[in-house]
């Protein structure tokens, strides 16, 4: 029996409605349990001594003075940790040519970035460990750093890892059609250089881990703020030489992740190793400075790109030359080649054109490693594509809306394969754009802009269409050899009182996964969401799964939950049919009771069925199955990824004297397939937009020419704050994926994918009459004034 999603009056119609988040009250009341809230007997704290240099040989580490500090228990060097913990190499077989040297949990004889751990101090308190760490005397011998991206491959540049031969980590070129010929014969060619600033995710809760090693049971338990508990279980087991079954990863409340917490961090693995060596619980909580120097960075790209268009505005070709520098190591186990790879895969995404060439060049440098952060590669690809499309429209004297209409894949074109070889099952670019224009009243906004321009007020309207990669299959990591599950599972159980427990392999980081799961299970089964208790984040308890990344929680985890709930429903109805001597196909479960499907007449509450099954099973027919626990797993198989689409618009004002940009309003219409919880989806979009606006206007990690980190606090790394954020209007078009019963695709990254490009286009729309243009993010007031030519020196 399928679910009549189109009928809002269907029974148990929780999918598609805003239901309360089961964890909201607990978190608001301060009853959340984050890693730092957990205190174990004999627990000690570890603090890391981190390299103050971008590149330095470690000659000697003198811990004598540190050991004299009251409370300090022990000091570990890289060599000490290496005795119990093997290094890792972050490459994937399907990213051909990707190379990276072995990386240790603590640097053994050479530090390769400012912030790399070089020693660990264990003490009875964090404060004492910091006192000790300040007294560790490391004899460094500074080495030449590789700091600049674009000269990393030059012959005169030192090779960061001599064993690797050169500073090239990865490169990939994709070419489709006859790009040269298309550019040679095109009506117009527009080119530009784009820069996206190095930034990071800034989670509210910093990275945190508490590891307990029980030698009597040979059992390791790690309470960890992570998006992927099973992946971490595998990694700790492998590198600490334990069976996976002896590693339990528990992930209770997590204060935001944004991709930052889906990676393997040297200091976190070192904490586990130290717990094993010292046989006592060990806690590591990163502080904010450590977050800036050791959380993964992202988005550090420089791109030369061009577009060829016909007189009619049709896109004839795109050519993209993308460079990115990933720091000193590829990050384990997802690797740091994915972001550049995504740029190649995603440029030109919304458009139906024939000739496409894109190359990414990924180099090593002595900076904090970069890796996957919310909307991996998307903001870069969308900025390149939508920036070029707007520039081409201006060159042709065409409205930016019109050029998009002429080039976007038609809404009935699917299934279709893009010039980058991405396969799209079903997208809605035109319907989304139409809805966006209606929401923003595009024509009226253009009139207002023109009127204000006469008064010297410079406003701009920017539009950005995008695609978003969600619901990944094993094509993302598994085929490359990474033990990262693309499949996810859910166990749904009915207890004697008719209440329901669902255990899921996807995780909750504050985005509302548990609310989504509760309503999917509620509808699948036929009970109210309040009756469903969701358990996530415990490798010893939940089905094996990938966790939360690449916008997969609802699409993959939600479908597994729906199927498990439907299976449990069938089991319950089988028992009910026997008890009521009725035809199973004529019964249904609605609002926690067995009912007659046709009339809706109540036949028996679930409590009664539970009482009989669990306590008076003797009264049921012998041999009647009574399995009130069901588990289902789900994996996508028809498409490597479920692409979604959307379009955003930004309206803003540029103060051409100060260069300050004031965001006035922002719109987003996106299509994530089936919307399970409208409020949660809208908030994901809004939060994502804000993170994208941060990248567009504020956020930037600064290094000097020697690879020294220049900012590392919330005072000098500017995250977007409420006062600067515009009102956001969110709309939806729903094109469910046919791969699953639920039909949901991901929504977590759409906002971040499109908002930087929308802002860039809006700023340039405002500046265009003055002949100025910006393409280097973040668009600081100074960069805008320099584009306007207002600053002479």
């Amino acid at each position: 029996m399928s679910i009549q999603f189109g009928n809002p009056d269907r029974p148990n119609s929780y999918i598609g409605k805003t239901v309360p988040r089961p964890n909201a009250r607990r978190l608001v009341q301060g009853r959340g349990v984050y890693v730092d809230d957990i205190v174990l007997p004999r627990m000690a704290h570890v603090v890391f001594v981190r390299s103050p240099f971008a590149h330095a040989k470690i000659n000697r580490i003198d811990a004598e003075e540190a050991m004299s500090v009251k409370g300090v228990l022990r000091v570990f060097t890289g060599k000490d940790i290496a005795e119990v913990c093997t290094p890792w190499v972050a490459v994937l077989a399907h990213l051909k040519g990707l190379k990276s040297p072995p990386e240790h949990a603590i640097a053994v004889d050479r530090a390769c970035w400012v912030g790399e751990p070089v020693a660990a101090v264990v003490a009875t308190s964090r404060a004492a460990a910091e006192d000790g760490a300040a007294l560790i005397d490391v004899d460094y011998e500074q080495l030449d750093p590789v700091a600049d991206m674009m000269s990393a491959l030059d012959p005169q540049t030192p090779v960061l890892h001599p064993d690797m031969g050169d500073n090239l980590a990865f490169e990939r070129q994709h070419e489709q059609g006859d790009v040269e010929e298309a550019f040679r014969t095109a009506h117009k060619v527009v080119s530009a250089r784009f820069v996206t600033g190095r930034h990071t995710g800034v989670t509210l809760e910093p990275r945190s881990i508490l590891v307990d090693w029980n030698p009597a049971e040979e059992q390791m338990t790690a309470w960890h703020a992570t998006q992927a508990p099973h992946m971490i279980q595998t990694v700790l087991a492998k590198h600490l030489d334990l069976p996976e079954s002896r590693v339990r990863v528990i992930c209770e409340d997590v204060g935001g992740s944004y991709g930052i917490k889906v990676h393997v961090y040297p200091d976190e693995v070192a904490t586990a190793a130290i717990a094993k060596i010292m046989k006592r619980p060990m806690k590591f909580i990163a502080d904010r400075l450590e977050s800036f120097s050791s959380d993964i960075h992202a988005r550090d790209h420089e791109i030369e790109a061009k577009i060829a268009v016909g007189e009619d505005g049709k896109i004839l070709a795109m050519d993209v030359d993308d460079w990115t520098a990933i720091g000193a190591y590829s990050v384990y186990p997802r690797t740091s080649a994915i972001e550049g790879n995504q740029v190649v895969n995603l440029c030109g995404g919304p458009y139906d054109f024939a000739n496409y060439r894109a190359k990414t060049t990924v180099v090593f440098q002595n900076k904090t490693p970069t890796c996957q952060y919310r909307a991996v590669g998307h903001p870069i690809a969308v900025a390149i594509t939508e920036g070029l499309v707007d520039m081409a429209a201006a060159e042709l004297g065409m409205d930016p809306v019109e050029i998009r209409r002429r080039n976007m894949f038609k809404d009935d074109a699917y299934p279709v394969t893009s010039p980058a070889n991405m396969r799209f099952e079903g997208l809605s670019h035109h319907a989304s754009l139409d809805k966006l224009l209606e929401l923003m009243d595009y024509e009226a906004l253009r009139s207002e802009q023109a009127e204000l321009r006469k008064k010297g007020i410079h406003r701009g309207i920017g539009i950005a269409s995008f695609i978003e990669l969600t619901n990944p299959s094993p094509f993302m990591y598994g085929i490359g050899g990474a033990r990262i599950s693309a499949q996810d599972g859910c166990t749904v159980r009915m207890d004697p009182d008719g209440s329901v427990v669902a255990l899921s392999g996807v995780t909750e980081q504050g985005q509302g996964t548990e609310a989504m799961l509760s309503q999917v299970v509620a509808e699948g089964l036929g009970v109210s969401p309040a009756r469903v208790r969701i358990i996530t984040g415990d490798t010893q308890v939940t089905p094996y799964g990938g966790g939360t990344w690449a916008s997969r929680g609802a699409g993959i985890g939600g479908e597994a939950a729906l199927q498990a709930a439907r299976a449990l429903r069938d089991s319950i109805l089988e028992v009910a049919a026997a008890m009521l001597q009725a035809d199973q196909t004529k019964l249904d479960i609605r609002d926690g009771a067995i009912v007659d499907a046709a009339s809706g007449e109540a036949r028996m509450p679930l409590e009664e069925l539970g009482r009989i099954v669990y306590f008076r099973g003797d009264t049921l027919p012998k041999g009647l199955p009574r399995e009130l626990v069901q588990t289902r797993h789900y994996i996508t198989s028809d498409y490597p990824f479920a692409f979604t689409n959307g379009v955003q618009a930004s309206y803003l004002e540029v103060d051409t004297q100060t260069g300050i940009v004031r965001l006035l309003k922002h719109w987003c219409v996106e299509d994530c397939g089936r919307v399970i919880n409208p409020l949660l989806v809208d908030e994901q979009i809004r939060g994502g937009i804000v993170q994208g606006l941060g990248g567009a206007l504020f956020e930037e990690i600064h290094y000097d020419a020697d690879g020294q980190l220049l900012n590392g606090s919330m005072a000098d790394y500017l995250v977007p704050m409420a006062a600067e954020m515009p009102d956001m209007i969110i709309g939806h078009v729903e094109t469910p994926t046919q791969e699953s019963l639920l039909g949901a695709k991901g929504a977590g990254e759409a906002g971040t994918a499109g908002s930087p490009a929308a802002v860039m286009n809006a700023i340039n729309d405002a500046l265009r009459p003055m002949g100025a243009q910006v393409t280097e993010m973040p668009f600081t007031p100074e960069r805008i004034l320099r584009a306007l030519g207002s600053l002479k020196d």
Partner: protein
Amino acid sequence: MKASAGGYARASSLRDALEMLAASDGSGRVLAGGQSLIAAMNLRLSAGDFLIDISRVGELAGVSETADSLRIGALTPHAEIGRNPLIRHHATLLSQAVEFIAHAAIRNRGTIGGALAHADPAAEFPACVLALGATLHVEGLNGTRDIRAEDFFQDIFETAIEDGEILTGLSVPKAGADERQVIEEVARRSGDYALAGVCLVKRTGGHRVSLFSVGPKPILAKNAMAALDRGDVEGAVEALKAEIDPPSDTQASAAYRRHLAGVLLRRAAARIEGGNA
């Protein structure tokens, strides 16, 4: 990071605080609202200090008036500066400045005395008191001293307060009937330290222009003031740009800050001429 304090004591009176300061052998640090000091301690930029908490010393709080000036106690919080009717009426520059200072929680705890004694060159209050021609009052065990704002700010985070002295308050001349006071600044985000800021006071005796976030201390732009006295705004902008030597950092270059100072002075002058102040 965890702060590493050398000790803490709450002073019951100014005398008590001064005695503890004298007894601390140079390690004493006066704690008022703590909005800069505690942040510095939490980054271990300052460690081992013996904290002398004056936040409950009642004699350092409050705003009072004489015939021609206001006396503002050092412990008056920013939020109170913003809403106090005497200040809003007689020294509106200070209450206007509060809108630019940080966020509500900081404005509730941070004190004007703390901000002036800390002497952050990017902060609003030091530039305001300079533009207003205020007098700062300090007290030590040997007595009190009055210091003109022009002489008070010496370098980045450096003031004329001597070891063993505490800033007790300041006196601000009441604005004359025709006086205009405006503050203009630009920050990347509301509540951030300004990329550059300008205070402009137009009183019977002439214009006073001070700037913040353009050097190691708040700056009184005397040549710009003279140009404004002549009614030459563009001349004042040019003079101003020559009078400052702003720093470059990750937020903005010296060139941008110099340009911005000129824009802000022009805007401040326009506001005064427009009577909007």
